[in-house]
């Protein structure tokens, strides 16, 4: 499964959700499909996308929050999985695209390439719903089930280690940050 295809497959289901992505390929690919004001791309601070998702989910329990994470990023914040599980925001879905490598810095293999199991780690941390999927069909199905379940889910999608030619897009970091906040707050006061 290619991550770009996986993103395209779930795009119609995430259009109205609050989405937080990690840096690099995930951010560039989602933007290539179509940026929305409720999408925030954390273009650094590896590991903290899931923590940002937790902060948003706790602050706005009425909104569905989706974090699009990666194996390299979540491996930097495994302790954060215990915090996600501890507060168990039912409006948070945590998707991890696992290409078993640090693609954007040269493709060096991560520990998932030698057997570390992120869904297993999440389950052991106490995340109530976890799964690992390897095909596009299985990913689409698991994603829809997680949304319907309405509970904290870590969904690991094993994807090919391929990405876009470049990672810089024409969306400025601060432009994204301020318009994202405005989009979230605008709805809050309505």
């Amino acid at each position: 499964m290619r991550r770009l295809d996986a993103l395209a497959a779930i795009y119609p289901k995430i259009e109205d959700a609050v989405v937080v992505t990690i840096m690099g390929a995930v951010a560039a690919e989602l933007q290539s499909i179509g940026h929305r004001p409720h999408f925030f791309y954390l273009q650094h601070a590896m590991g903290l996308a899931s923590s940002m998702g937790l902060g948003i989910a706790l602050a706005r329990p009425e909104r569905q929050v989706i974090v699009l994470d990666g194996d390299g990023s979540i491996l930097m914040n495994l302790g954060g999985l215990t915090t996600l599980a501890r507060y168990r925001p039912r409006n948070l879905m945590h998707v991890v695209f696992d290409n078993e490598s640090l693609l954007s810095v040269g493709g060096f293999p991560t520990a998932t390439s030698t057997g570390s199991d992120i869904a297993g780690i999440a389950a052991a941390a106490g995340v109530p719903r976890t799964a690992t999927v390897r095909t596009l069909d299985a990913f689409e199905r698991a994603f829809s089930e997680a949304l319907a379940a309405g509970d904290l889910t870590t969904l690991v999608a094993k994807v090919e280690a391929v990405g876009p030619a470049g990672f810089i897009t024409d969306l400025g970091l601060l432009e994204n940050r301020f318009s994202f906040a405005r989009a979230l707050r605008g709805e809050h006061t309505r």
Partner: protein
Amino acid sequence: MSPVSATHSRLIYDALKGCGIRLMSALPETWLVHLIRLAEDDPEMTLVRLAKEEEGVGISAGAHLAGVKSAMLMQNHGFLASVNGIVSCAQLYRIPLLMLISYRGEFGERDPWQTEGGAVTEDLLRALRIPFALLDRPDHVAHRIAKAQTLALAANKPVALLLCRDLMWED
């Protein structure tokens, strides 16, 4: 009885509430016990207990963008552990981040293991260009916290208050 000042902890907590803080992330440390319990017992406050302090930067950033005011409670060693998040999330994305940092290792410290962190805390704050002030007397707690939060929101940047031994510890 813990020699941590319950009275001054309450003063700090009330000042944070007065600034509209409704979410606190915390990693327990001796000086913060009363503050964490006050947050835990307050139905108006969301307390997020962390595994490691840097998570709190992400949580506060998310809460801010979603319209909720937050603060981080941590030891200065937790601040040391959070530096990448502070720089590459809070500073890069202009997030107002109110950090209350217990200032271990300053004059009067008896725990040998705390002494290195104390020696670098202020220099590191300066190196990161994070505005900071000491909280070392009860009479300035409320207005320093309020002013710190005002600056954080006006500048969209992290600010720090160092919780000092003279305020937090009764010995």
